[in-house]
């Protein structure tokens, strides 16, 4: 495997190890019960241990792979996919923005803002961007609010 894949897998294993420890920590006060009479804490503790153990096993495997020279510096491995990191981060930021604007100004305003931002990231400009953002919000409003009668969330300020 390449260095990129190696680093990605190490980060994944570390994140899941932390998640497993967090699950165990959160479940420490829950009663475990017995195998015949499981209680609330049985599965969280079981899967927290499983996650932590498997993450450690994955880290050990990765360390052994590196030691055996399976990690190469050149080119890309056949399983790899290039990641559009800027785009991924941009869309995550757009979703966070969407949630914040929905809470403040409501669903329709948030739709317009989010679709405009998303269209801009994807390279749309001028009238196409306006049609995408306003048009999408209008279609959503017509389908859900007018036709189906589902009231869309209103913001705290509207």
């Amino acid at each position, binding site marked *: 495997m390449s260095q990129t894949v190696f680093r990605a897998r190490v980060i994944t294993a570390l994140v*899941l190890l932390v*998640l*497993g420890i967090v*699950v165990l920590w*959160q*479940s420490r006060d*829950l*009663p475990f019960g017995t195998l015949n009479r*499981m*209680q*609330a*804490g049985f*599965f*969280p503790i079981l*899967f*927290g241990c*499983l*996650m932590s153990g*498997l*993450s450690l*096993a*994955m880290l050990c*495997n990765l360390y052994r792979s590196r030691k055996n020279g399976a990690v190469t510096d050149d080119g890309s491995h056949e*399983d790899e*996919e*290039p990641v*559009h990191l800027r*785009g*991924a981060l941009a*869309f*995550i930021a757009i*979703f966070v923005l969407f949630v914040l604007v929905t809470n403040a100004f409501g669903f329709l305003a948030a739709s317009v803002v989010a679709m405009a931002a*998303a269209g801009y*990231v*994807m*390279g749309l400009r001028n009238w196409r961007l306006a049609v995408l953002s306003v048009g999408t919000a209008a279609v959503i409003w017509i*389908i859900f609010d007018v036709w*189906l*009668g*589902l009231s869309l969330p209103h913001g705290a300020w509207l």
Partner: protein
Amino acid sequence: MTGIEEILNGFASALSLTNLLVCLAGVALGTLVGVLPGLGPVGAISMLLPLTFSMEPVSALILVAGVYFGGMYGGSTTSILVNVPGEAASVVTTLDGYKMTQKGRAGAALAISAIGSFIAGTIGMVLLTFLAPPIARMAIKFGPPEYFAIVLAGLLILSRLTDKSLIRSYLLISVGVVIALVGIDPSSGMLRLTFDSPWLVDGVDFIPIIMGLYGLAEVIGSLEQVHLKPEKTDLSLKKLLPTRTEMKRSTGPIVRGGLLGFFMGLLPGPAKDRRKRWGEAPFFSFFHLEKSRDIITINEAGRKQHDQTSHLYDKLGQRLSPLPCQSGEKRANESGSR
């Protein structure tokens, strides 16, 4: 004899022109609503129920049934076309349906899905009519140990679908189960993994996870193809329909799916609750069964695996003629060449 007479009377009533038109309307409306993500058959029925208040009881029931069947089918439309499942039961459809779309066989995939839904639904109805009492008696005997065994088997089989590495597979399954544990414990009512947040008391709903996993991933993936321009091609109806070979190869899975779905549906208990807790493990286990029969293959790396998708059609014993949607293949070619 009385039972047969009642069945025949029921057919006579259902096959009247009015009721057939009501059924058509119900299926169309249900399909439209089922396409919308987050609104499944139950949501569609809830919203369209006021339409039935002024109708005859038989017509109202037929309309509601049509909406249900249409809603179940509608979820697979977005699964096939844009790799975003419309509802929980359509998740597995993305695995091969979207690959067919990328190969330019979206019409065939939609047609096979519709035909499969019709045949399997008919099988279920016929079996329900004649076999329901004895099978229900057996299904009632299913208790918590049996449900646990089914789900455990599904999860273990699921682990073989995801990755070559067992450790990574089980790790991902553990993550999924932990997400499902968030919320109130059904036995004791205690809060689990809520981090004292009121937002997590109801747990994590399945639809936002599906939207995040499939929708966000698809949007991010499409960022790499922004510079590609779609090409116009001539489409004929023949190219949009499945070929004879595809239909022949689909017959077995459709019938097996219908039978398996019938028996799974007979298991008593809140189906939504089972699905929320354990995901679509039975669907995935059946999917793996079909995979092992070399009838369908899965493609976990997504749209980049153009060669594997070509191999699928080789296995079907047919080289596709020039595809109706060249842009799909061009994108796949360009992506695979990077």
